[in-house]
C-alpha cells in the first residue's frame, strides 16, 4: 500500500517517540504574529531557554494592525504594546520579521506563500488556526497554541499524535460563478463543522486540481472550519509554477533538486485513506452562510432552513439559537436579504486573484447607497499589485474604502468592527457570534463575487445573475 503526503511528511519529520506515546515531530518552519507569540517568549525566558533555530522562524504583524492609518504610534496603546513585543522578541532572538516598513508585511497566511517560504513537504505551525492554509502548497500545516509555540521556540519540535486522513475529492467542472470559497463552504456544509475532528483533509479531484494557487489557499484555509486541523493538496505543476522565482524559493540547480524532492511527497496513487468522500463539482452552487457556524450554509437559491428540518435534537437546538441570533425566519429566501456592510479581504479571500476577479465586475458601477464596503488586501505585496494593475482605483471609484493590509474585519482586533446588529456580507472565514467586533453583529460568509454583488445591490444577490456569469 502506498502512503499519503501526510504520512510521508510526518515520517520525514519524526524525531522519535515520547514516553507518553506521542511523536516528537520536527517543525520545518514556524510563523509568528503578535497575538499568540509574546506569552510564548515570556514562558521561554521564565524557563531560561533560548530560541534553538531562529533561521526556521518568520514573523509578521497582522491582527492588530490598523488598516486606515498606519502611522505610528497607533491610537490603540494595547496594539502598540503587542507590536513592540513582537519587534523586541524578533530582534533579541535574530528572527526575520516582515515589519510594516519593508514592503513585505501582511496577514501571515498570505505573506509566507507569497514570499515562497511555504514549500511542499514541510511541517509548518503557527499560533493561528488558519495555518491550515499552507497545506495548499503540499505542506502539513496546522495551528497550535501558545505553549506549543514556546515548545517550538525552545526545541523546534512538538509532541503530537498523527491524524487520520480523509480524501475529499471534488470531481468534474465547477459551474460559472462558483469559486474555491463556495467549494469550501459546500464541503463544510456537507461534512459538518465538526465532521473533520481527528482528520487531516487531503483535497483532490479534477475540480481542485484545476484551481489556481490562490483558490487552493482559500480551500485549505477553511479546512479548520470543518474541524480538520490541517488540509492539504498534493504539489503539482501549479504549485511549482507559483513558487518559481519567489524570493525564498530555491534557485538554479537547487530548484531542480527541490522540485524532484517536492514531487516525492505527493500521495502515492495507491495510498490508503481512512475515509474517502467524493463530491460532484456540478452540485456546488454559489454558497452563503445563514447561521453562526460555517456549516450553516445554503446555495444562493435556497431558503433559511427550519429547525424541524434538522437531523437531530441537538442540531435543532443549534438552528434555533442561530435563527434567534441572526434574526432570520425559516423559509425566508436568503437572496434579497439586506446587508449593511461588505468586507472583501482576510487570509481566506484577500489574495490578488480575489481582487482580480472582482475588479472587472465593479467597473462603471457604484456601491449601493448606505452600504459600507471595505476592501482590504491581505499583504503589502498584494496591495502593490492591486495599485499597479489599476484594481485599487476601480474599487475606489466604485465607492469601496480601499484599505491597508491586515486581518481587519475578519476578527476586528483593530478598529474595523461591525456596530450593533449590522449584517456583513463577508469573504472571511468565521460567522461565529460576535466575531466581527460587535457582540450582536451578524456575518454572512460568501465568495468575493457574491460580496461584490451584495455591495452593488445592498442585498444578498446571486452573482451569476447580476454579473451574467
Amino acid at each position: 500500500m502506498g502512503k499519503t503526503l501526510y504520512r510521508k511528511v510526518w515520517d520525514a519529520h519524526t524525531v522519535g517517540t515520547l514516553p507518553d506515546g506521542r511523536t516528537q515531530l520536527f517543525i520545518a518552519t514556524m510563523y509568528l504574529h503578535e497575538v499568540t507569540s509574546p506569552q510564548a517568549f515570556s514562558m521561554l525566558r521564565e524557563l531560561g531557554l533560548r530560541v534553538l533555530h531562529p533561521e526556521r522562524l518568520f514573523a509578521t504583524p497582522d491582527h492588530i494592525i490598523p488598516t486606515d492609518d498606519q502611522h505610528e504610534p497607533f491610537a490603540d496603546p494595547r496594539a502598540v504594546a503587542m507590536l513592540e513585543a513582537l519587534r523586541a522578541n524578533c530582534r533579541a532572538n535574530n528572527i526575520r520579521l516582515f515589519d510594516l516598513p519593508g514592503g513585505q508585511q501582511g496577514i501571515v497566511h498570505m505573506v509566507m506563500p507569497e514570499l515562497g517560504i511555504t514549500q511542499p513537504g514541510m511541517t509548518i505551525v503557527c499560533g493561528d488556526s488558519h495555518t491550515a492554509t499552507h497545506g495548499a502548497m503540499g505542506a502539513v500545516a496546522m495551528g497550535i497554541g501558545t505553549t506549543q509555540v514556546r515548545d517550538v521556540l525552545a526545541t523546534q519540535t512538538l509532541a503530537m499524535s498523527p491524524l487520520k486522513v480523509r480524501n475529499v475529492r471534488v470531481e468534474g467542472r465547477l459551474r460559472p460563478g462558483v469559486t474555491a470559497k463556495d467549494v469550501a463552504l459546500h464541503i463544510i456544509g456537507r461534512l459538518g463543522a465538526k465532521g473533520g475532528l481527528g482528520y487531516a483533509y487531503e483535497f483532490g479531484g479534477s475540480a481542485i486540481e484545476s484551481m489556481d494557487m490562490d483558490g487552493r489557499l482559500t480551500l485549505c484555509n477553511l479546512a479548520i472550519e470543518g474541524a480538520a486541523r490541517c488540509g492539504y493538496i498534493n504539489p503539482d505543476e501549479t504549485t511549482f509554477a507559483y513558487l518559481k522565482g519567489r524570493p525564498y524559493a530555491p534557485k538554479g540547480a537547487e530548484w531542480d533538486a527541490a522540485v524532484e524532492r517536492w514531487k516525492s511527497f505527493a500521495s502515492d496513487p495507491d495510498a490508503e485513506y481512512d475515509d474517502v468522500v467524493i463530491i460532484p463539482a456540478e452540485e456546488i452552487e454559489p454558497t452563503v452562510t445563514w447561521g453562526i457556524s460555517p456549516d450553516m450554509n445554503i446555495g444562493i437559491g435556497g431558503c433559511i432552513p427550519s429547525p424541524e428540518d434538522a437531523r437531530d435534537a441537538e442540531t435543532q437546538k443549534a438552528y434555533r439559537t442561530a435563527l434567534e441570533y441572526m434574526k432570520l425566519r425559516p423559509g425566508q429566501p436568503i437572496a434579497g436579504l439586506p446587508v449593511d456592510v461588505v468586507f472583501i479581504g482576510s487570509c481566506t479571500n484577500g489574495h490578488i486573484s480575489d481582487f482580480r476577479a472582482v475588479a472587472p465586475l465593479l467597473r462603471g458601477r457604484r456601491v449601493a447607497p448606505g452600504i459600507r464596503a471595505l476592501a482590504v488586501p491581505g499583504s503589502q505585496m498584494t496591495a502593490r499589485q492591486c495599485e499597479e494593475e489599476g484594481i485599487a482605483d476601480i474599487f475606489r471609484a466604485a465607492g469601496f474604502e480601499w484599505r491597508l493590509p491586515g486581518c481587519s474585519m475578519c476578527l476586528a482586533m483593530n478598529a474595523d468592527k461591525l456596530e450593533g446588529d449590522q449584517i456583513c456580507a463577508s469573504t472571511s472565514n468565521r460567522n461565529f457570534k460576535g466575531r466581527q467586533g460587535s457582540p450582536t453583529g451578524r456575518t454572512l460568509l460568501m465568495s468575493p463575487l457574491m460580496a461584490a454583488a451584495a455591495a452593488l445591490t445592498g442585498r444578498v444577490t446571486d452573482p451569476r445573475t447580476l454579473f451574467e456569469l
Partner: protein
Amino acid sequence: MPLTRITSVTGKAVPVLGADMDTDRIIPARFLKCVTFDELAGTMFYDERFNADGSSKGHPIDQACHAGAAIILGGENFGCGSSREHAPQAIKRSGIRAVVAESFAEIFFGNSTGIGLPCVCASRADLAAAATLTQAEPDTLWTVDLERMQLRCDRASYPLSMPAEPREALMQGRWDAVVELMNAPEAVERLAASLPRPHLS
C-alpha cells in the same frame, strides 16, 4: 521540572451546553489584546454572560448556586475555531480544573492538555443527565477520575473517554511536553541538518 500528576478533579459542576462552543464565544477577540495571560481570569464566555451595558444575562456561570464550580459540562466540538490558547487559559484562570464534553476541537484539546486542564469526553445522554442533576442540586460534588475514567457523584456515575497519550501525560505529570522535547537534542540536530529550510538565495 516535576509537574503535578493530575489523576482526578473534584468540585461542583456548571453546565455550558450546546454544540460548537467556539473560542470566540469562550473569549472574544478584544480580550486578546494583551502580551500576558494574567488578565484573563473572569473573562471566560464574557459575551455569553453579559449584555453590552455590563448587566448579567443570567448565565449558569453567574448563578450563585454554581459559584466556585471546578468542572464545565459542555457539548459537541467544544473549543472549535481559533487556536487561541487564551481560551483554555481564561477557563483555567477562572477556576475551572476540568472540562467534560461530548467532543473537543483538536487544537483546544491540545492547548488544554499542555496547561494541565483535562478535557474528557462523555456521551450526550450522560452529559444531559449530569447537567440535569447538577441543575437540580448545584452543590453536588463531582469527580472527574482519570484513573477509572469516570464522572461520578454520590448518586451517579458515567463512563469517560480520552485518547491514551494525553491521559498518560496528565497522570504521569508529563503534560508540559517541553521537558521531554529537550531530551534528544542530537537527534533533533541530525534531522535539522538533513531538512532544507527556506532562505533568500
